[in-house]
């Protein structure tokens, strides 16, 4: 009994530690001071500054747009890739595809960023929204493939034959039989791609150029200049945003498993 208690204390301690920096930021976002040393007076002024900061708001919206667009495209190409891999009967070919797929998963971000920078310069693609979007699509595809593949492995291919026997066209086989069966994997892949994109700093930093900036890059350049409580206010907003996103994700996935269970019964 005593051992369990100690383990609970340890667990709680680490959990508190995990959240301490986040709540530290949120706490000082309401302080009227200029640093995170002691709390002066309660104020919303940093939030006012934040909502009047058009540059930051534009970057915030662009970051979200970038994340949604890149994960959508990455999900499509990644799902295609997963289907292509699962249909590759040649064992060696499949292994090669999978190995190449994992290259970007195991590469350090600086290498990905640097090599993409060389690549874009080589092709003469200007640095900006386009190059960042292409990079985000590129590094999100492998995780989508990895999320969709297990679902395809479970997929019963005799269903395809059955659909064909019943007169389904190729398009119908995919849209009505296969895609619905692997949707949970596709959704998981989409959300992973979304978090990859929202969270990325290192790759974006290399390929962003001067005109375009994402939230991570902007926070970095501001944080290098020292403490600015507007960033604290921003982190409160981001925290709430993330909570909403997580909630949506859990509602969707729980809903799906519910449907799945209902069918099984």
């Amino acid at each position, binding site marked *: 009994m005593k051992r369990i208690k100690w383990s*609970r204390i340890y667990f709680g301690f680490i959990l508190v530690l995990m959240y301490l920096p*986040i709540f530290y930021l949120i706490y000082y976002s309401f302080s009227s001071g200029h640093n*995170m040393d002691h709390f002066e007076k309660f104020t919303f002024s940093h939030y006012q500054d934040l909502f009047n900061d058009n540059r930051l708001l534009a970057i915030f919206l662009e970051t979200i747009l970038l994340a949604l667009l890149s994960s959508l495209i990455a999900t499509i190409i990644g799902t295609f890739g997963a289907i292509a891999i699962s*249909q590759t009967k040649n064992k060696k070919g499949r292994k090669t595809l999978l190995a190449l797929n994992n290259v970007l998963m*195991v590469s350090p971000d600086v290498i990905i960023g640097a090599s993409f920078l060389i690549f874009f310069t080589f092709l003469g693609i200007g640095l900006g929204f386009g190059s960042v979007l292409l990079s985000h699509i590129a590094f999100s595809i492998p995780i989508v493939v990895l999320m969709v593949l297990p679902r395809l492995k479970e997929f019963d291919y005799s269903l395809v034959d059955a659909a064909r026997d019943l007169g389904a066209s190729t398009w119908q086989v995919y849209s009505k039989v296969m895609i619905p069966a692997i949707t949970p994997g596709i959704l998981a892949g989409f959300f992973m791609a979304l978090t990859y994109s929202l969270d990325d700093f290192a790759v974006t930093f290399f390929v962003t150029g001067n005109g375009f900036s994402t939230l991570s890059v902007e926070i970095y350049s501001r944080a290098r200049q020292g403490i600015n409580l507007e*960033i604290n206010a921003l*982190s409160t907003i981001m925290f709430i945003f993330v909570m909403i996103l997580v909630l949506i994700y859990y509602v969707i996935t729980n809903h799906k498993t519910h449907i799945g269970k209902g069918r099984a019964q």
Partner: protein
Amino acid sequence: MKKSKLFFLIPYVLWLSLFVIAPIILITINAFKGEDGFTLKNFQQFFVNGTFLRMTLNSFWYAFLITLITLLISYPIAYILSQMKNQQFWLLLIILPTWINLLLKAYAFIGIFSKHGLLNNFLKLFGIAPANILFTDFAFIFVAAYIEIPFMILPIYNAICDINPAVIQAAYDLGASKWQTFIKVLWPLSKSGVESGIQAVFIPSLSLFMLTRLIGGNRVITLGTAIEEYFMTTMNWSMGSTIGVVLIVLMVIVMLFTSSDHHKKKEIKL
């Protein structure tokens, strides 16, 4: 069916060749590019000039320390989590901070570690005068470990959950002590999770140049920092590419090493 297969394969292969194969080839070409054509000068500089070798050793040492600390903290957490009620909820609580932007968390530590920040206020209670914490190796390793912990917990937790509880029970029934059960049963069976956790932490630890800048105050120089500097500040792309290629080769070696190791173990088990 053949046609539809090509339809799925083409965009994917296009991505593979453009964003996986082409960049690797280009960075390799760049590494060998001098003012007039092919040169080995960069590699010569890397291996003869001691600073680069020291830096490489340094970054692997830091990455090793970060991985070790993360593992020591995370393994017990993963185990405790696997024994709890409402595991999904607690797991979510652990993963949630990873969705908060990494830069925001690093920024928080600038405040926490500052001269009159939270940690120094806490240390004051014990009569330790304001210590310089920010811009030290300790600060860098601490923040890096903080950021990587959830990525270590998750795979280990999954591996522990896959273990049949009856196996642990059997070990106890056969008279094994807690320590013996851990060493002989729990650890070997959760080793795959530990391995993927190490991979998930070690590699990103090499490229945390933003932390070396914000928290390490340019005192900690890793390979990632050097690559960033050569590409973004001094604009010496070929030297930056050289460091990149060395890093890639080192990682391939490490991975070949660990994967062959993996196979051997599987064979023994069979």
